[in-house]
């Protein structure tokens, strides 16, 4: 990426931009500042404002979903039923999953895309700003609907975030229609967000920025957006069939009417597996931006990183049934999905090796974004290892639907996706707010999170191997000690995240002024604009050589 050279050097650009604003702040509609009051946010078509909205929304959902996780861990602190009824417990596990996947992780990546993609490719805004506004403002309604369903008679969704019928049809609460509508809205929002990303990246790159010069974050998001467009309609189809099976007498998933409950699982996981990569590919992009910055060394194997990302995306359509090994698949299908799943570890391994090679003989410093990124590499890889173990079908018969799986996907989603989002937030906070964050508090946040997250999730491997199924509100006595440790880790991790909120709010309110490029080794167009990034950037596209 070092071969991106900006025509004007950074300082010149900064001067010219600020000159422009000083000279004539009301130069016409194209160059006005931010509107005042609620209209700035409600009617916003500005990629930076919409990005901020997404990020704040995601943070809110992270805490709501996190509060549910705290309830789950409190109930599981000791054997017996103490705090909640089993039915409510199931509502908590279901809502926790839905909110974290669709409300916390995905909107955070869309927020980062909104903020950073135009800045990274030298575009003035997203290509479709009004659709951008709409795709965000759907989300609060979608999640209000989902959360309100918890307060209806009979309660909210209690069938797991995977909503397998007939549990989600014949046996589900009356509020299932609200769940279905809410998922529809989330899907519409995601598809519009993805269209916007693709159109922006393909059409609005600055002159000279060829595809193979794009930063990895741009590449990974481009591929992610294609995945979203491919699978979100499949999810919409699945929830629609659930809706008609429950309310309109169809029998897609009911054997008594000629349907098949396993059909649902095929459809769901055809969405669900690419969805898993939707939540990790942008992380790869973030880590590929941060590691070179703090190793002060160009990303190793840029081309192979791009190809590996594309391979992972393509392979993600051929592995869905590894979520269903115990469902009664024919032997040939079990073998096919086992081989394809094992194969995914090859391109994923390439990425890990490339990051380690980037570190090799670098000049390394350990700022907070770097710490989170390094933790990501190690802990995501542990999640990858357990993923490889799960791919071995005969062993999966023992792992399936146990806490081993819970440990696996929390390693890739929390210490993977969420840690990368934290890294990204620390990395770009100076660009967003114009102030350096409190480094000391950020480091506290990192170390508290790192220690507690491992106390939380690592022992779950043992629980699963020893035979504790997932999604149970109470357990046999042999699991008591480890569950206690896990719960303590959970409470610690939950509390640690309050430090993050403190750091962010402090950085928004003020602090040491951030220069245009606060990180010595950082590269890319986003560092050529001042900090905070002006309301409008790259009115005149920069030229990339």
């Amino acid at each position: 990426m070092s071969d991106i050279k900006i025509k004007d050097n950074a300082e010149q650009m900064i001067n010219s931009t600020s000159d422009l604003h000083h000279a004539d702040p009301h130069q016409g509609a194209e160059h006005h500042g931010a509107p005042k009051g609620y209209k700035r946010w409600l009617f916003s078509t500005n990629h930076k404002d919409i990005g901020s909205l997404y990020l704040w929304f995601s943070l809110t959902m992270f805490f709501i979903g996190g509060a549910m996780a705290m309830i789950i861990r409190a109930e599981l602190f000791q054997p017996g039923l103490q705090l909640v009824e089993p039915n409510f417990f199931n509502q908590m596990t279901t809502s926790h999953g839905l909110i974290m996947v669709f409300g916390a992780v995905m909107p955070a990546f869309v927020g980062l895309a909104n903020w950073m993609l135009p800045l990274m490719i030298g575009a003035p805004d997203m290509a479709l700003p009004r659709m951008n506004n709409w795709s965000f403002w759907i989300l609060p309604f979608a999640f209000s609907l989902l959360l309100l369903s918890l307060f209806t008679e009979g309660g909210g969704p209690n069938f797991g975030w995977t909503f397998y019928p007939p549990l989600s049809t014949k046996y589900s609460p009356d509020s299932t229609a609200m769940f279905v509508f809410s998922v529809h809205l989330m899907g519409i929002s995601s598809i519009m967000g993805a269209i916007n990303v693709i159109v922006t990246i393909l059409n609005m790159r600055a002159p000279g920025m060829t595809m193979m010069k794009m930063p990895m974050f741009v590449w990974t998001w481009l591929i992610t957006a294609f995945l979203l467009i491919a699978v979100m309609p499949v999810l919409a189809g699945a929830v629609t069939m659930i809706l008609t099976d429950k309310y309109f007498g169809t029998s897609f998933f009911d054997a008594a009417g000629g349907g098949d409950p396993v059909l649902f699982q095929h459809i769901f996981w055809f969405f669900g597996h690419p969805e898993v990569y939707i939540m990790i590919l942008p992380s790869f992009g973030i880590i590929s931006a941060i590691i070179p910055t703090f190793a002060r060394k160009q990303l190793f194997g840029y081309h192979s990183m791009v190809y590996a990302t594309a391979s992972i995306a393509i392979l993600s359509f051929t592995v869905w049934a590894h979520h269903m090994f115990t469902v009664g698949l024919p032997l040939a299908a079990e073998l096919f999905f086992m081989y394809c799943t094992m194969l995914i570890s090859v391109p994923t391994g390439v990425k890990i090796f490339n990051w380690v090679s980037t570190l090799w003989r670098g000049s390394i410093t350990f700022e907070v974004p770097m710490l989170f990124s390094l933790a990501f590499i190690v802990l995501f890889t542990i999640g990858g290892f357990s993923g490889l173990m799960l791919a071995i079908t005969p062993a999966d018969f023992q792992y399936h639907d146990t806490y081993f799986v819970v440990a696996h996907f929390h390693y890739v989603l929390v210490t993977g996706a969420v840690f990368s989002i934290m890294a990204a937030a620390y990395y770009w906070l100076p660009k967003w707010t114009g102030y350096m964050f409190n480094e000391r508090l950020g480091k506290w946040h990192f170390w508290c999170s790192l220690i507690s997250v491992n106390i939380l999730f690592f022992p779950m491997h043992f629980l699963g191997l020893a035979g504790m199924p997932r999604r149970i509100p109470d357990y046999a006595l042999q699991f008591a000690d480890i569950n206690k440790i896990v719960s303590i880790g959970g409470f610690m991790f939950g509390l640690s995240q309050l430090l993050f909120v403190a750091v962010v709010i402090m950085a928004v309110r003020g602090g040491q002024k951030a220069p245009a490029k606060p990180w010595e080794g950082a590269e890319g167009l986003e560092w050529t604009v001042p900090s905070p990034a002006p309301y409008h950037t790259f009115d005149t596209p920069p030229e990339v050589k």
Partner: protein
Amino acid sequence: MDNFEGGYVRLSKLTTPLIASVLGIVSTPLFAQQSTLNMTEGVTGISNTVYNLHMTILYICIAIAVIVFGIMFWSLYRHRKSQGAIAAKFHESTTVEIIWTAIPIVILIAMAIPSTQALILMEDTSEADITIQITGSQWKWHYRYFDHDLEFYSRLTTSQAEINNEVEKQPYYLKEVDNPLVLPINKKIRFLVTADDVIHSWWVPAFAVKKDANPGFINEAWTKIDTPGTYRGQCAELCGKDHGFMPIVVTALEPEAFDDWLAQAKITANQQLQAEQQSLTKTMDMPTMMTLGETVYNRTCAACHQAGGQGIPGAFPALKNSPVALGDVNKHINIVLQGVPGTAMAAFAKQLTKKELAAVITYERNAWDNNTGDIVQPAQIDTALTNSN
């Protein structure tokens, strides 16, 4: 301690030091007692194979982790800017890219071969000596010995008081049932797994058998147990409110002991059938029926309709003051016997004896101030069943 737990203890002696040292978890006394650290080796050829596959892939992962993280941390230590490290310029090497693509593929192929062999073996359900049909329903298991005209339900026996922390929990808390599945050792046993309502999953770790029970479809699995003993498992697929409360207990006996058990079980079943026939001729009084009815209700109905008959609004209808419990008695009987299609209300005709059915309906019509005064007799149930057939 039965054999199953014995296996755990033996296992933990091998694995605890290894895992504890590799992973830095040091509270050994805690883990040694509970022996809840690793997958069970189990008591079948297949479960041993699975355990070995699991350990092999685990060791491979640990080896890769040591190498990759070793290089990474060495680099983080040696190439610190604070130590004066100056960044190198290299950023590409096709050779190493090919090497680190090829080596994982070789490892994967080496892993895929034994996995494939094990899988082929696991899916071969042919030439079984005994066939057991396993049916999951909310929230109990039903076992049917295909060639022996014997079937029964298997339910959790842990008391509600233990679950609610009112009394001390027994050693097999949540892992104990009224009628365990009894199987002979050294025979190939074929399982036909299905469900009545939602998807369940029948899992006994010691056999490495986990098979989803799909309503309307039948899955096959098999096992061949090496050692007599008691083996415990749980439902592994979320199946509603009491998913955590439908354990599996299997008692494995020597073939001769199994034959004795089978003969005795058939005699007992016959006696129950005769008692059932006799009950049809008797007229029961209210206190007897209310007492029996309450027992049956709390065991079978209270999970949904609640002990006080109030149900769970929006999920399970109340019986207290309900039109069903206060209205036409024949309609009430039919609902209990046949269930309500399209809802969670199951058909109980085959799950309970006629006397139990009569008692529980009597109870529902007279408990919680319902006070209809109706006493339903076993003979009425018999008539209703004959009419519906």
